[in-house]
């Protein structure tokens, strides 16, 4: 079957692990899906809306684990080889979606499919092997307990060359609520897709294929791709190329934006030791690029503490979560903690956020059901490493912390909910919303919870685009625009680090989309698609019990702090009401049931 749209096969591969798992089947994907959901996160979200029964147990057989590429993947457009992963999140109970740069996206498309949806539960621990149109299951008992990287290495040695592997680590095997799925050393990290995969007794997915779909206008794509690649090497991305995302530390610390000791402060006395500039000078060990990327933002650093040799990648979010958030100022400890999260296969932001909650519990004398000395204290590096290991294997206190800060605080009580720093169950990223008010709104209303990648509204606050005294309507419009831009980039699967190298994402995105797909896409079409994707995520949440009360911020962020500019519950309510109005949703935050999305639910899907 050949698609009428360039860059796609228009085919969804489905596998049910509990029902003839060797017999995957294909369902056609309608053309409109690629107009309105585009690909990547948009496609995965739409498939989740269609395939996940309302209220399905996130760890049960009916929750689909979805992988989706985009029309751009495989075209040579820089940064576009990204795979979206979606499922109902076991961490939030709402939409779970992640985006990971990976050769997996290319290889999945080479099998003749744009997306994969896995349902059911395998009768025993298994590896799903997909080679072109054939699917099969292999026993995975011998792989249990291995890190994702070791799992992939062993599988490739067993299966042969050319396979790309997505795997879980011990955390996913044990249902850690924020377990990740790793591929090529990158993680689909947030919202617990690794736990969903583990619940299906699926240790890994190995993919190999042989045919990419042609673009509608290959020469046009090549010309546009060359131009974008050239700009990707300019000053707008120098920060990422020359230092990496860890460059945020010193600057954020200077402005009081660096979350410290569980958001107890916005600056950290040891920040200079953790800064990107210091890491670059004293720990840098190499630089890598994701699949099909010209930017090369992934920097690796070596531990210099006399311990076992270690070189690992490090990103700002990991650095803040395992560093300042826990009061840890030793970069060697943070590097070892980051590597441990990767080896265990779990989201470092939620791991750090939940450990920081436990550290505050210790400071306040809260009983966590274990001897006090087993609870980590602020700044205790060895205890941080021990806690991470315990979480990954659900040992001791780790069994509680593996539930995430929301569930752990609900179980423990004693007022500890007040310092559980999450939105909708997802721990906050490394930006203090008390000084970034557009982001504060963005985090409160974001469908997947407190996520800087889905909101991106910090971009507004850290610019001169919006007056700090802007009214609620203007701030809401800015937050919605930032959210939609993120949805668009995540669905085109273009890296957000390119956004300052692109004059107008809608203009350039439409030009690329026309060349790849052959559709007459306009900038307005992409703007409409982005809003549609945001609404699709909201509809997923509505199917799983979202209520207005979930659009909020942790109580700590809404406490008086002696400044006139402090966030307050009343201020947040005004911003949220304005946001709903900008979206055209009713006062309870619900899209109008009378104007359904342009892609009718269920069309073309089984």
């Amino acid at each position: 079957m050949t698609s009428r749209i360039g860059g796609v096969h228009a085919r969804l591969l489905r596998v049910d692990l509990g029902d003839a798992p060797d017999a995957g089947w294909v369902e056609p994907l309608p053309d409109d899906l690629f107009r309105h959901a585009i690909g990547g996160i948009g496609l995965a979200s739409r498939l989740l809306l269609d395939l996940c029964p309302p209220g399905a147990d996130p760890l049960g057989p009916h929750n689909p684990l979805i992988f989706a590429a985009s029309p751009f993947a495989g075209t040579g457009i820089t940064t576009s080889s990204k795979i979206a992963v979606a499922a109902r999140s076991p961490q939030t109970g709402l939409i779970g979606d992640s985006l990971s740069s990976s050769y997996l996206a290319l290889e999945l498309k080479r099998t003749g499919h744009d997306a994969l949806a896995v349902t059911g539960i395998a009768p025993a621990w298994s590896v799903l092997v997909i080679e072109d149109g054939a699917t099969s299951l292999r026993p995975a008992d011998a792989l249990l307990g291995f890190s994702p990287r070791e799992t992939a290495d062993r599988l490739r040695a067993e299966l042969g060359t050319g396979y790309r592997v997505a795997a879980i680590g011990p955390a996913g095997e044990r249902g850690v609520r924020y377990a990740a799925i790793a591929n090529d050393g990158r993680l689909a990290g947030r919202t617990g897709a690794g736990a969903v995969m583990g619940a299906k007794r699926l240790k890994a997915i190995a993919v190999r294929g042989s045919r990419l779909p042609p673009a509608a206008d290959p020469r046009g794509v090549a010309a546009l791709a060359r131009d974008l690649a050239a700009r990707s090497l300019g000053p707008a991305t120098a920060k990422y190329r020359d230092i990496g995302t860890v460059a945020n530390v010193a600057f954020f610390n200077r402005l009081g934006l660096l979350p410290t000791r569980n958001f107890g402060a916005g600056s950290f006395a040891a920040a200079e030791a953790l800064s990107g500039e210091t890491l670059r000078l004293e720990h840098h060990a190499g630089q890598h690029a994701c699949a099909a990327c010209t930017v090369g933002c992934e920097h690796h650093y070596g531990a210099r503490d006399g311990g076992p040799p270690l070189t690992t990648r490090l990103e700002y979010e990991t650095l803040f979560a395992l560093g300042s958030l826990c009061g840890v100022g030793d970069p060697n400890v943070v590097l070892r903690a980051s590597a441990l999260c990767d080896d265990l296969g779990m989201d470092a932001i939620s791991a750090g956020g939940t450990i920081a909650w436990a550290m505050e519990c210790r400071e306040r004398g809260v009983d966590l059901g274990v001897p006090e000395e087993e609870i980590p204290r602020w700044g205790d590096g060895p205890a941080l490493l021990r806690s991470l290991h315990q979480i990954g294997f659900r040992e001791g206190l780790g069994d509680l912390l593996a539930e995430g800060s929301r569930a752990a605080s609900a179980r423990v009580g004693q007022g500890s909910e007040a310092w559980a720093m999450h939105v909708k169950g997802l721990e906050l990223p490394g930006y203090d919303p008390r000084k970034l008010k557009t982001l504060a709104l963005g985090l409160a209303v974001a469908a997947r919870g407190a996520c800087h990648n889905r909101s991106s509204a910090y971009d507004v606050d850290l610019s001169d685009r919006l007056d700090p005294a802007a009214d609620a309507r203007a701030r809401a419009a800015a937050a919605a625009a930032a959210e939609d831009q993120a949805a668009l980039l995540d669905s085109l699967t273009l890296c957000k680090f390119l956004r300052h190298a692109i004059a107008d994402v809608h203009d350039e995105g439409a030009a690329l989309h026309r060349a790849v797909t052959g559709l007459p896409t306009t900038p307005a079409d992409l703007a409409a698609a982005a809003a549609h994707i945001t609404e699709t995520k909201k509809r997923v949440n509505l199917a799983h019990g979202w209520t207005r009360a979930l659009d909020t911020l942790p109580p700590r962020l809404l406490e008086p702090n002696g400044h006139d500019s402090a966030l307050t519950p009343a201020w947040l309510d005004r911003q949220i009401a304005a946001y709903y109005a900008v979206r055209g949703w009713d006062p309870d935050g619900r899209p109008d049931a009378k104007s359904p999305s342009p892609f009718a639910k269920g069309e073309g899907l089984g």
Partner: protein
Amino acid sequence: MTHSPNASPVTPSPNHPITLRVELFGVPRLLAGERTLLASGETLGELAADLAKRHPILAGRVLDPESGWPLDGYSFVVAERFTRDPSHPLREGTTVLLVASAAGG
């Protein structure tokens, strides 16, 4: 106070009577090898031009070689506010930050 190896003497010119401390972050800091530099100007545009003149190592990579204004991807922060307005007035004692515009992590 620190100076980059290529810095000119810090002598306020008659046209640029205000000398300010510019804090560097990220790539500018690595290039200059310093955390702070001095430059003069009554507006941000004048300050940027003087910064580029005194510290040529920033020109081309961070600052426009002709105007001294930050290239796309860089911005000033004045009194905790981001600004790319060259006419932004400066006062004695004001701290200026030179940072990457992109804050993605």
